[in-house]
């Protein structure tokens, strides 16, 4: 058996770690690129969203490289995502591929379900070993997210542009390489220290821009055309509340943790939207309300034809909060130049707004 899976940002590292520890063979499809997009688009319905197309592309590439078991998330939420695994399985079978599709509904099955699934895939490894492997995988996720937060801060004010991004890539490799908790801890400390040592211009007070919206396009840099790196190049500090580690904790351990970050966003959204509308629509509305005073602006990312985000986008203008929101919609037709123009103009707007309000406050 050779497992393969579609990508989601750098969360690959977790599955890689897990299966390596348990001795499961795996095939890793190349990171999202033009080819995977072309493959995905070719075999997908036109108006399905970008996450469907890209993940399908990854699956085809994984199968072509010898994978025979696909792992895909599923769910029973309100957005179409819930049945993507099923539809993709059909498309792939129609294309003549032979494989097993293993789906896991993280949110519904919680940690117990995931542990059971991993145990099955590993051919019956002892539970203690499975738990240790999952623990290391989740720790890696947290470590990457901690480093990414530091990257966001440094990227905006580093003197030589590009160093933070380079260190981030190296850090991911080092975390991938770590084989136990102590090695992981060392790698994390090492890169946090290196990031703290990057030469920065402390005189700059960078604009703070929140990046939020639909889960996949927020977390997969290829799908959002590296929006965070581009904002960093424009001297903006990216603030993001959506991290894979948060989400995993929320999905897997919800009951144990009580009030979560997510519930806070839901409460904030209440005056405008009182219920879940699928995907991350409810959270997107909540984020605008929550961050109106702490951030200078928000970039709202949404895949084309995403129902939950369309709902959120249409509610946003009515939110009584004085914060500019730029909605960027991505699909295979979106051009990089168009996105850069919008980002540049948005950052200009935020700068001029801030200086005008400063001038106003002074007299």
């Amino acid at each position, binding site marked *: 058996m050779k497992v393969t899976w579609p990508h989601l940002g750098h969360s690959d590292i977790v599955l890689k770690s897990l299966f390596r520890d348990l001795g499961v063979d795996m095939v890793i499809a*190349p*990171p999202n*690129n*033009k*080819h995977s997009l072309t493959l995905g688009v070719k075999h997908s319905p036109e108006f399905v969203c970008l996450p469907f197309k890209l993940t399908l592309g990854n699956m085809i590439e994984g199968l072509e490289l010898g994978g025979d078991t696909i792992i895909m998330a599923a769910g029973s939420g309100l957005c179409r995502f819930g049945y993507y695994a099923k539809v993709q399985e059909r498309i792939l079978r129609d294309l003549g591929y032979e494989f097993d599709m293993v789906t896991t509904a993280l949110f519904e099955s919680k940690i117990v379900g995931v542990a059971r699934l991993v145990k099955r895939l590993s051919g019956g490894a002892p539970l203690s070993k499975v738990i240790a492997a999952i623990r290391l995988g989740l720790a890696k996720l947290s470590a990457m997210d901690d480093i990414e937060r530091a990257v966001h801060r440094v990227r905006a004010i580093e003197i030589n*542009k*590009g160093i933070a*991004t380079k260190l981030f890539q190296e850090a991911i490799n080092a975390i991938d390489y770590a084989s136990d908790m102590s090695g992981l801890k060392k790698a994390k400390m090492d890169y946090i220290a290196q990031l703290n040592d990057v030469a920065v211009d402390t005189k700059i007070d960078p604009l703070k821009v929140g990046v939020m919206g639909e889960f996949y396009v927020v977390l997969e840099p*290829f799908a959002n*055309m*590296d929006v965070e790196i581009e904002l960093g190049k424009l001297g903006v500090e990216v603030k993001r509340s959506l991290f894979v580690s948060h989400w995993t904790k929320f999905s897997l351990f919800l009951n144990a943790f009580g009030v979560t970050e997510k519930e806070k966003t839901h409460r904030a959204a209440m005056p405008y939207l009182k219920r879940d509308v699928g995907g991350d629509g409810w959270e997107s509305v909540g984020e605008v309300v929550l961050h109106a005073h702490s951030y200078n602006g928000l970039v709202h990312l949404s895949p*084309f034809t995403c129902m939950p985000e369309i709902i959120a986008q*249409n509610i*946003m*203008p*009515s939110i009584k909060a004085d914060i*500019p929101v730029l*909605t*960027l*919609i991505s*699909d295979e*037709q*979106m051009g*990089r*130049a*168009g996105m850069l*123009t*919008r980002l*540049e*103009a*948005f950052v*200009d*707007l935020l700068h*001029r*707004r801030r200086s*005008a309000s400063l001038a106003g406050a002074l007299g």
Partner: protein
Amino acid sequence: MDVCLGIDVGSVTTKFAVLDEKSDLVTSLYWRTSGKPITMIQEGLKEVEQRLPLNANILGVGTTGSARYLAGVMVGADVIKNEITAHAIGALHYVPDVQTVMEIGGQDSKIILLRNGVVVDFAMNTVCAAGTGSFLDQQAARLGMKIEEFGQQALQSETPVRIAGRCTVFAESDMIHKQQMGHRVEDILYGLCEALVRNYLNNIALGKEITPPIVFQGGVAFNQGIIRAFEETLKSQVIVTPHHEVLGAIGAALLAQEEIKTKKEKSKFKGFEVTQLDYRTSSFECKACANICEIAQIFSDGRVIARWGGRCDMWERTSQPERM
């Protein structure tokens, strides 16, 4: 005479504007890009040089529009600015208390909201270019008329017909259908104007607070039919400023003026000699990683002066030492 130059290279047209010390327009050009941005930039510069008095001294240059980086490295720009900011600055120059800027260009349309002279919100078409200048161009050509006559014809309409305007292909089928049913051309044209305005207000301007003074600019503001349709729908006066078609270039020139004043440095302008240089472009696929980016490079007399298009800055960096 000290002047500042603004260049706006858009998808369909290339605009030049020269402003004097008092920020008054000295001369301007409005030409079709015809898919040849490099040639048009060079030809335009030649024309500008000829129109300027001999004692004219270029203090600063600003570029904007979709080819702003290309234009910027070719001529040596002091400011390279996105077209949203440039248009807002241009509109403020003529209507200082402007609150809403509606701009419809060749392939994109935008709305910019300003309060107290500061941009507070904007939107630009994202997934669809229905209702922009290129489509009007096409329809004028199909009906065998010059785009310049389109607006006047549309104004003759007495009973406009309703045209489906969401998708340009369906709009065209609907227009053909209405023609076949025997509706008059001017009624169809004005119906199309109304459809475009409806489309603009429902998509780009969705949820935005449109308050007067409203300035309408960009190439499509030449079209009297669209102006009337906007005024009827918004129930408010729509101002079309002088030189509205080159407002982006004027904005770029004003930004260059500001930049030179604050930085107190000499302009990076390479001089009118750049019209004599031989520029060439080529592209290749970078194989350094799985992203396989398309890198475009521009040569001036055989030397690479800039590269772009990658997801990382590997190629942009290699071009740096030769850039300025």
